[in-house]
């Protein structure tokens, strides 16, 4: 996956979680939590979805890597390079 594809994947998963999520003015380097009103349960959903779709196991201590869209890409791109 390219970094753009990783971004799309994350946004697609968030859209599944909240179909009213507004990506219009989303800043890639700012916390997703604040911009999209996500809570810790939403992040758990993202982790579960990544496991379901790409057999990706994200340990709890790595959850902070999912904070922003940019940090998601940095963290996930190497893990999804063959996906």
């Amino acid at each position, binding site marked *: 996956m390219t970094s753009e594809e990783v971004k799309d994947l994350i946004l697609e998963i968030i859209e599944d979680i*909240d179909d009213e999520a507004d990506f219009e003015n989303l800043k890639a380097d700012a916390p997703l939590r604040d911009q999209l009103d996500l809570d810790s*349960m939403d992040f*758990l959903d993202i982790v*579960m979805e990544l*496991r*379901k779709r790409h*057999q990706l196991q994200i340990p709890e201590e790595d959850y902070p890597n999912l904070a922003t869209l940019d940090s998601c890409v940095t963290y996930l791109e190497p893990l999804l390079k063959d996906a």
Partner: protein
Amino acid sequence: MPISFSQTLAKYDVVVIGSGLGGLTSANRLANCGHKVLLLEHHHRLGGLATWFRRKGHIFDISLHGFPYGMVKTCKKYWNREIMQSIVQLKNIVFDNPQFALRTSFDRKDFTDILETRFKISPSVIAKFFDTVSRMNFYDDQTMTTRELFEDFFPGRTDVARFLMEPITYANGSTLDDPAITYGIVFSNFMNRGVFTFEGGTDKLIKMMSDELEKNGVTICTRTKVDRIIVEKGKVRGVEAGGKIVLAKAVVSNSGITNTIHNLTDRRAFSDEFLEKASRVRVNNSSCQVYMGVRDGEKIDDVGDLLFTSTAPEFDSAELLAKETKSKTFSLYYPKTRPQFERYTIVASMNSRYEDWADLDEDQYLKEKDALISRSLKDLDRYLPGIADKVDWAEAATPRTFNRYTLHTQGTSFGTKFEGLDVSRSIFKEVPGLFHVGSVGIIMSGWLGAINYGVIVSNDVDSYLRF
């Protein structure tokens, strides 16, 4: 439809023991993840403490008293849109005690107004209090108690502490001496938007959840009491019920953390260190309830949805637990609860201790139950004059009743104290394949806590099954 346990397959990916909201949600999530799930419930209906019963044309809800707005998002994500759409707000929450009498929508804005105008607390202190509690996380420092939190912000103000604490004590059984985070997390959840309920009643919710489970391929057996969880070579192998063994890679126990460790699993499966930690888990208190049904055709006035009442001079956690407590919550169910069902019912709830009821002989027990009913009707008369004449059915439940129907240790109706959370969260590290879901740690209780915890545990189970 549930099938008979004799008709199940020999093997599943996961067996879920118990169908409280946590067990139901785990079963649903795991089926959604593509696992083959068997759900076993000892009672004849699903729901655990999220239950109801019928008497003389009345339907009595046991634990439908009001949950936070978070249920809307949770039901939409982890159940379905129809369930979410039945959630409606309860707008009239009433307090009445010797220190104050007021009505509130139970949200941050209204609480801020009341704290400022009635209790004369400065706006900056109120804002700081709300910010403090809304930032609390379960992994934060646990040394500060709720008593200390109130003393910090509102020194000497027992009235303010009562206003802020009393409803939460009924919601999760926490006391002033429990960690402040157990108060803050739950209180903040409510303050988000107020108190909500499920239109259609508990029976409708559980029916909708069972339908969803069946749609997702979960096999359900009721009247099936699991005798033991089978552990071989340090790993979970399945369960045994009534002499029949069903194999499974993972078992999710929704049967109470103390039951799971002490009664369902061979103790030799756990390390001494873990057992030691488990032995220190205190179960939370139980409840007494009085169910009162208004005669068909009679009406009562709308005096509020949830009434926090007390004639005790001040809020006192011990007083709330006493057998003859002067404090009780009345949940009022008007016809709007179940549209097209023109009935009024009232449920009085009190927190209570198992030991106060456990050893009564049958005669004393019945007498005490009658006294409980009389006290409840008398207290309710202050809000609904003449209510005793309008009620054609009144019945009491005690900690013994809760124990009988849920099998919970000491009939606990709020799971365990805080230390139970860590034991519940770490049990699968002790015995691979064994998971626990259910009310633990005070914060993972109530309808919303139980459902969300079901999701959290499903994540662990799914991860275990896939890797």
